């Protein structure tokens, strides 16, 4: 039987082409993901290992038990400890490091980088006067508060040379520093496209920590001393509670574990999309084998007549699927390895530098890819294989075409209706529940299965809706409509493949659009301020900024937002300090109980969630332990609806400031006399010294920022789902090509009695269009339903949530479905038009 199966594959290789392509794409997605993630993961791990070459033992501050003492205090490592560590037996040298955010302005004054990966640190010369971590490519190490050094990558990008004066900013005010040196480094952040500025140690300590303090001390072992031996030596000199030592190996391992974890997350995410593409592929495989079996009815019946058992017939079909799956899986694996290599090249060419390393193809990758391809194909061919076994031997002698029985559709429709009904009910019930995620997920799956099962039934009425339009295309149109509903199962499977992708795309678009609107509304509605001033990196601002802003003539009201840790009972809670006098002019908070009044003295307002949790009412008195350990009492004057920007316990800065060790602002809200205009913004920018590190955003900027984030996310998802759509397109091509083959006699007859080539082409194209639009309408419809339902759940936690139907995008999706139809029909239509009508008529 194996030979028969193999012969069949070879005989039908043209007809199996699309199936092979579909499986191949899915497998390529899987193997590409696996190759890419393991390559990147290995490269990062190797690079992190390298990053700890100079570190044998690292000493870092240990955060104290938060149940006692001053809340949130972080102990610092000092010079004394550094000296002690350096003298420990077995230690060769000790390096104290500090680091923090440092913005570098390019020559136009704009921030280089994205604000998150722009870092600053200290140059820590060793005994030879050099810092082994940062070899200088040109110039000298920075000395004193007005000099700094810059990494070569950033310097080259911005065109800075040794001797240039560069505007930089660490916590707000602009500093003009002289660039004394350009260094190279294999620091991971720089490798990933960030910037690194170095200061001499005292300057860095002042900027990033406390004078004389370090954030980490790295100790290098003398030759012959092991990391563990050095660690136990250092442990003896460490203060009891303030610090802990870790070996370099441990750190590297931890980082490697972290990298592996984040790579796993990425891998699983990508594999989920690969799974969707493969799932779509199943429809195509099943369709192909169903058609092949139907076309081969006589052949299979003959096999049965000459003595093959039912099981042998099924097995021959499955064997055929196995061969197809194996070929496709091998091709897919090869393509996937190419994709993995290509992706890395693409990433490094776009500037996101990925550490170098060999392409990693693990045995498990090869095995998983081959297995996935073969198992999916064989599984999808299972039902057609069983159907093949049911062909009676007498069919071999029968010259009359047996028409497919339609009675099993009744069973199918009943099952489908039950599933879809139960699923829809589940989803609807879940929208009313507090925590309906599980119910909704289950309901969605049931509904989706129900719709899959019901699509053959739905195809007739839905496609009939298109008939007035199709009639405009004359006979080709009405023939196309009838051909489309002729084999409801095949049409349904083809349309379902497209439906899956479009359901997800539409659903995600609806959810993203609605959530974006909700967050946007929350961010901007609660705000009366014209501008929000913050660091580009979202690190704290120097209080000087708020002072400078308050002093400006056009500013009518302003308030910094400060965070300070505190303890209430045994819980740590963050207090938000504001300018109590102006707070009401800058925000528009909804008070459910009490009112804002004027925030001063011990008066505080609390968000509704916290208030509910703690049982606070206006008038409640809250005992707090401040950051410095002093105790006090606050009185609740109102309860407001919290949002992303403002929540928790809000009080006047005058009350909070005396307890803070170091005063920094998260952001400053500003209201101006003229409202947000370019001129106002210009004067703010100027007043703050054209600072590259400070972002001044009006409401529109805030909205744009949110929109940008959502668009980026959506575009990524679209890209990942594109594979599922491509596989669906292959499915439409496949169905049409096979239909054309199956109907070649009819097409020949139509040509003979006078339908010209254009008419034949148009007929095939319209059929394709109808099937694709059918899938598109179903997908978009389901997507909107799921989007709405998921939104009802989200609405529970996002009070400003509001369903936004992206009509424009939905129109684009439908147009895309139509385009899929037209494109998919190109080749089958050409084939149909080129059919030799004599051969077609004569063939039996």
């Amino acid at each position, binding site marked *: 039987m194996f030979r028969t199966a193999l012969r069949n594959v070879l005989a039908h290789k043209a007809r199996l082409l699309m199936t092979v392509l579909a499986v191949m794409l899915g497998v390529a997605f899987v193997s590409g993901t696996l190759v890419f993630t393991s390559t990147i993961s290995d490269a990062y791990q190797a690079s992190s290992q390298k990053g700890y070459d100079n570190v044998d033992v690292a000493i870092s501050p240990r955060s104290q038990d938060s149940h006692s003492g001053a809340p949130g205090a972080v102990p610092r490592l000092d010079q004394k400890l550094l000296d002690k560590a350096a003298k420990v037996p077995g230690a060769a040298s000790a390096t104290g490091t500090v680091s923090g955010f440092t913005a570098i302005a390019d020559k136009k004054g704009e921030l280089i980088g994205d604000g998150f990966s722009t870092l600053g640190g200290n140059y820590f010369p060793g005994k030879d006067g050099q810092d082994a971590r940062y070899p200088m490519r040109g110039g000298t190490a920075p000395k004193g508060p007005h000099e700094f050094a810059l990494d070569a990558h950033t310097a080259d990008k911005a065109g800075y040379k040794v001797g240039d004066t560069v505007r930089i900013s660490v916590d707000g005010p602009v500093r003009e520093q002289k660039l004394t040196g350009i260094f190279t480094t294999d620091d991971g952040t720089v490798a990933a496209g960030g910037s690194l500025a170095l200061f001499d140690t005292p300057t860095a300590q002042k900027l990033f920590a406390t004078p004389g303090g370090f954030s980490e001390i790295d100790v290098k072992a003398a030759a012959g001393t092991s990391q563990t031996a050095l660690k136990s030596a250092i442990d003896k000199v460490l203060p009891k509670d303030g610090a802990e030592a870790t070996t370099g190996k441990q750190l590297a391992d931890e980082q490697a574990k972290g990298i592996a974890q984040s790579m796993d997350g990425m891998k699983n995410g990508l594999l989920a999309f690969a799974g969707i593409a493969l799932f779509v592929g199943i429809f195509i495989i099943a369709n192909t084998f169903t058609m092949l079996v139907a076309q081969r009815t006589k052949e299979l019946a003959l096999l049965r007549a000459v003595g093959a058992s039912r099981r042998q017939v099924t097995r021959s079909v499955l064997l055929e699927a196995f061969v197809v799956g194996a070929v496709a899986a091998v091709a897919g694996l090869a393509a996937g390895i190419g994709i993995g290599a290509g992706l890395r090249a693409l990433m490094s060419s776009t500037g996101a530098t990925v550490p170098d390393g060999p392409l990693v193809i693990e045995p498990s990758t090869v095995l998983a890819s081959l297995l996935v391809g073969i198992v999916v194909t064989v599984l999808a061919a299972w039902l057609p294989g069983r159907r093949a076994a049911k062909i009676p031997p007498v069919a071999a002698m029968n010259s009359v075409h047996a*028409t497919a029985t339609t009675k099993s559709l009744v069973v199918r429709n009943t099952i489908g209706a039950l599933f879809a009904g139960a699923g829809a009910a589940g989803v609807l019930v879940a929208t009313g529940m507090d925590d309906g995620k599980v119910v909704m997920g289950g309901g969605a799956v049931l509904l989706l299965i129900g719709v899959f099962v019901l699509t053959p039934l739905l195809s007739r009425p839905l496609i009939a809706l298109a008939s007035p339009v199709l009639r405009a295309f004359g006979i080709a149109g009405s023939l196309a409509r009838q051909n489309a509903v002729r084999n409801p199962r095949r049409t349904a499977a083809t349309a379902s493949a497209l439906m899956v992708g479009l359901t997800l795309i539409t659903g995600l678009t609806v959810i993203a659009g609605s959530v974006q609107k909700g967050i946007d509304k929350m961010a901007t509605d609660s705000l009366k301020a014209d501008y929000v001033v913050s660091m580009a990196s979202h690190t704290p601002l120097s209080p000087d900024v708020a002072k400078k802003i308050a002093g400006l003539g056009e500013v009518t009201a302003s308030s910094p937002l400060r965070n300070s840790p505190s303890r209430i009972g045994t819980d740590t809670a963050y207090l938000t300090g504001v300018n109590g006098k102006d707070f009401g002019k800058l925000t528009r908070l909804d008070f459910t109980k009490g009112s804002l009044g004027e925030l001063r003295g011990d008066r505080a307002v609390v968000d509704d969630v916290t208030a509910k949790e703690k049982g606070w009412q206006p008038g409640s008195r809250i005992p707090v332990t401040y950051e410095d350990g002093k105790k006090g009492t606050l009185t609740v004057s109102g309860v407001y609806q919290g949002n992303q920007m403002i929540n928790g316990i809000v009080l006047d800065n005058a009350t909070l400031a005396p307890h803070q060790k170091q005063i920094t602002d998260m952001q400053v809200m500003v209201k101006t006399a003229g409202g947000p205009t370019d001129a106002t913004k210009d004067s703010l920018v100027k007043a703050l010294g054209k600072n590259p590190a400070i972002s001044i955003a009006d409401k529109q900027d805030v909205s744009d920022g949110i929109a940008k984030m959502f668009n980026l996310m959506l575009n990524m998802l679209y890209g990942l789902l594109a594979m599922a759509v491509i596989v669906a397109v292959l499915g439409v091509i496949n169905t049409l090509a096979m239909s054309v083959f199956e109907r070649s*006699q009819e097409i020949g007859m139509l040509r003979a009695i006078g339908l010209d080539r254009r008419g034949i082409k148009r007929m095939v194209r319209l059929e394709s269009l109808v099937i694709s639009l059918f899938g598109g309408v179903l997908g978009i419809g389901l997507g909107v339903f799921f989007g709405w339902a998921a939104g009802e759940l989200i609405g529970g936690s996002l009070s400003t949530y509001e369903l936004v139907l992206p009509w424009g995008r939905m129109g684009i999706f439908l147009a895309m479905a139509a385009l899929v139809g037209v494109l998919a029909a190109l080749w089958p239509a050409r084939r149909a038009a080129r059919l030799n009508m*004599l051969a077609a008529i004569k063939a039996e």
Partner: protein
Amino acid sequence: MTTTTHSGVSTTGHATAVAARATDLTKVYGQGETKVVALDAVSVDFRQAQFTAIMGPSGSGKSTLMHCMAGLDTISGGSARIGDIELTGLKDKKLTQLRRDKIGFIFQAFNLLPTLNALENITLPMDIAGRKPDRAWLDRVVETVGLAGRLKHRPSELSGGQQQRVAVARALASRPEIIFADEPTGNLDSRSGAEVLGFLRNSVRELGQTVVMVTHDPVAASYADRVVFLADGRIVDDMPNPTADMVLERMKGFDAKGRTS
């Protein structure tokens, strides 16, 4: 121009014009060593309102002659005309239009689109052309082939004989200049076959239709007004007013010749 090229052929009398004519029609398949001459300079006229049967042993070129005359296949040499229209040199589009407007077809099988009902199948050529069928004529055709009660049935709900009657009705409905039938009774039992042949003969006698039929069945050929015999790509005989016995005798001659030579 003469109306006959062969002597002794009598027509039914009311028409002598030529509906289709082949002059030195040659059809060659393949090239070099695999070259096969299917038609070797065949000249024949098919007169209007006459029922002509083309007969001959397998491989004699009878189907090829029909395909070439009907514009289904290309012509290697000579000329083929439908009415006044020369087929050689016509582009596919013109040829398609010609088939649509001037020619009716009845094939051995797969005459009908399974998605269309009987009536839709009958009017299909006119639908393709975008013409409205002549209602009275259509009714008469349907009446003639006896399908009045089955017009809403799909082909799968009709018997083989009924399916071929639908095909006959389709060929007649657009009033083509000529109908080509390729073994129209090949798949039918003798009773259904006799019915279909009867309709074809009646369409010639009563409606003045021109019919050319390829067959290998002497009984079927006996329904025709005239039988043209082909062998090895040449016309070897032309028999007016045939009977089944006469045709059978003539065919036996071919067989004997085929075996002895």
